[in-house]
């Protein structure tokens, strides 16, 4: 049974892909059938993923010796490019996380999208996304990963722009694609350099080649490759400075935000580094960059999240922040902590997004949290789930976030105190803004015109399941030995470091108390605080004006030069061509002047020519005569 799943691991991405084809080609118009097909395919993938986990456990497949199946995709110009499935505990974990969230989101979407005429299309895209993401997870080489990496990018584009009639959605989709493309450019360069240097991009082959290469040539060139590869995750996982697309991506339907822009796709960057950790772990410079950039992003995004007002935007910045955490963990050398947080984050962030979806739908597309209030009376289940999510992300025991965040903090503290400090401040801010969200939206008085009602069952049950996972996954992972399962090198024995854990609990509690005092008790006016902070508040509220800066830079380097190039093309490059044409025409006019119809002039010219010929031949005749002495 398990072996069947293992050997057929390639079916996991293929089933949703088939679902995409079937829905896209045949049942697009039929909402119900489309939904059933999508959910069935996802469910089957989920079951297979569980089977893969079982197989990994049963066959004792460990990180060092994964199970690999591959086939040749194309052979060209001396390269052999493969496709296949690589299964190790990391893969198995990712498969389960992705399929679980995908399945929940699929079910949720049945309720969420029931009035949308594009529901068939929606399920098609969701299935395509699942296929791409799962294909990415089981990649055997960088190229396959890049292929599916772009695939998830495409789905993200399609789904952010799902409401294509909205200009904001259209622009957000475009922005997401282009921003991640910039990252992909770096990643593609890295892959090219790997291919050129090693002649292969296969993970398992590289794993054997890289140490030898380092032994012979040192790490300097590999560091360049590593940094280039890291640009990809910067784009995809929303790290500074390519994070700008992620908040805008919330223009998509909320289930999409939950699935793609919180739980799965955005962690692809983290997963990439995890998958290629055998390269990165050898490159201390790159690890340092990753750690610092991750920590900075975590802090940076948290400071923005504190002042945002739309529900999903807060969650988006929190996602950026949490992704920064994962990067930080990778940077400080703890694959385990990073992947652990990836898993728990996937559950609780998906949970919160789905809650956000329920709330926003209940509020008739009103996203500003300050226009909500008292929702806990109207939507008790959603409220409870959201609370679990907030507690989880704030890192309070026994919720999932506590264990994973603690692991990251511990790992950071081992390496560098400044990093640890940054991470702790971020944890404080996180707890603060998440509680702010919770308190503002769900506590207080019910507004008079509040239309909110509890949502339907399709939307409720996934919340409950995810909430349950958000509670147990941390503790379960911790006690069941996640660290013995997913690790790089020698797995570290991890007990909870109660100094660090305790301080972070205290910080979170203080932050939540503060938020309670401000937003529920109204002990301090939030407006007063904002005014006090002045410029800082403005910067935070406008996300440090990064969008504006980018727009300016783009206008300068793309549009202005583009117009210049067009001018050059029309007036100089083309001008030369047309000038040559005009030159020929002018020459023709000049040369046509003698042709004035005066026949006698033609005759005169003709005879002038004859005279010239005669003179010429005479000249030579005389010459010959002088040589031959007068006789022919």
């Amino acid at each position, binding site marked *: 049974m398990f072996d069947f799943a293992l050997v057929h691991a390639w079916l996991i991405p293929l089933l949703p892909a088939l679902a995409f084809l079937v829905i896209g080609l045949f049942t697009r118009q039929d909402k119900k059938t489309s939904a059933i097909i999508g959910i069935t395919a996802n469910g089957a993938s989920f079951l297979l993923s569980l089977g893969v986990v079982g197989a990994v456990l049963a066959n004792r497949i460990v990180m060092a010796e994964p199970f690999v199946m591959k086939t040749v995709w194309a052979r060209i110009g001396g390269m052999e490019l493969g496709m296949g499935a690589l299964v190790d505990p990391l893969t198995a974990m990712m498969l389960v996380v992705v399929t679980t969230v995908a399945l929940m989101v699929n079910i949720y979407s049945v309720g969420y999208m029931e009035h949308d005429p594009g529901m068939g299309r929606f399920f098609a895209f969701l299935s395509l996304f699942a296929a791409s993401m799962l294909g990415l997870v089981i990649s055997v080489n960088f190229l396959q990963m890049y292929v599916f990496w772009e695939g998830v990018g495409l789905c993200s584009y399609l789904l952010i722009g799902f409401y294509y009639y909205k200009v904001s959605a259209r622009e957000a989709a475009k922005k997401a694609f282009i921003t991640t493309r910039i990252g992909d450019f770096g990643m593609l360069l890295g892959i090219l350099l790997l291919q050129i240097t090693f002649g292969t991009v296969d993970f398992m082959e590289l794993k054997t080649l890289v140490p030898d290469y380092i032994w012979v040539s040192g790490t300097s060139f590999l560091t360049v490759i590593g940094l280039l590869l890291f640009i990809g995750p910067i784009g995809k996982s929303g790290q500074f400075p390519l994070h700008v697309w992620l908040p805008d991506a919330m223009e998509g339907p909320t289930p999409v935000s939950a699935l793609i822009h919180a739980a799965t796709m955005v962690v692809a960057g983290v997963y990439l580094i995890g998958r290629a950790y055998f390269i990165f772990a050898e490159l201390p410079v790159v690890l340092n960059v990753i750690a610092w950039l991750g920590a900075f992003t975590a802090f940076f995004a948290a400071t923005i999240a504190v002042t945002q007002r739309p529900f999903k935007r807060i969650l988006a910045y929190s996602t950026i922040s949490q992704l920064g955490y994962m990067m930080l963990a990778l940077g400080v050398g703890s694959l385990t902590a990073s992947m652990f947080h990836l898993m728990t984050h996937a559950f609780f962030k998906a949970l919160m997004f789905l809650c956000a979806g329920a709330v926003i739908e209940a509020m008739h597309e009103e996203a500003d949290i300050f226009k909500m209030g008292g929702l806990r009376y109207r939507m008790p289940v959603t409220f409870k789930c959201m609370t679990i999510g907030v507690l989880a992300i704030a890192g309070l025991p026994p919720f999932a976030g506590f264990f994973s965040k603690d692991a990251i903090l511990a790992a950071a503290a081992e390496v560098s105190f400044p990093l640890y400090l940054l991470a702790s401040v971020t944890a404080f801010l996180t707890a603060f803004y998440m509680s702010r969200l919770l308190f503002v939206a769900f506590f207080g008085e019910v507004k008079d015109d509040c239309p909110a009602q509890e949502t339907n069952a399709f939307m409720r049950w996934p919340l409950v399941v995810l909430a349950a996972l958000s509670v147990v996954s941390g503790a379960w992972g911790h006690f069941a030995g996640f660290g013995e399962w997913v690790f790089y090198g020698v797995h570290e024995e991890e007990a909870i470091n109660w100094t660090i854990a305790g301080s972070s609990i205290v910080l979170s509690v203080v932050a939540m108390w503060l938020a309670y005092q401000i937003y529920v008790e109204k002990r301090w006016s939030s407006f007063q605080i904002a005014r006090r902070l002045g410029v800082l508040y403005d910067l935070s509220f406008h996300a440090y004006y990064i969008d504006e800066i980018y727009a300016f830079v783009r206008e300068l380097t793309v549009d202005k030069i583009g117009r210049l190039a067009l001018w050059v093309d029309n007036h100089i490059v083309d001008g030369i061509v047309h000038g040559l044409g005009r030159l020929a025409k002018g020459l023709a006019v000049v040369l*046509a002047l003698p*042709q004035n*119809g*005066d026949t*006698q002039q033609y*005759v*005169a010219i003709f*005879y002038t020519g004859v005279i010239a010929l005669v003179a010429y031949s005479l000249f030579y005749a005389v010459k010959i005569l002088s040589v031959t002495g007068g006789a022919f």
Partner: protein
Amino acid sequence: MMSFMEFMQLATHVGLHHFLLFSAILFAIGLFGLLTKKGLIPLLMCVELMLNAVNINLVAFNHYMPVPDYTGQLMAIFSVAVAASEIAVGVALAFRIYRDRGTVNVDELKELKG
């Protein structure tokens, strides 16, 4: 330089060169006319002069060069035939142009230009 007597000697012993010079002069006169006359008929006449000059050459060559037969004269006869057709068509053309345009002066007929 040759003396006057020698020149006279040369000049009075008529040979091929005399004929060639004569035809060249005749041709040049025809050419001069061809370039200066306005009327179409005088132009035709000048062309006839030039053709005659050519014929003289042919006949003179036939007479003075060591050739076994009358090929030169035969060529001259062909030339005459061509000249005859030319003058016939030329005159017809001149007549036609006169009928159509009311003039036979070439400076008034300048349609042939680029």
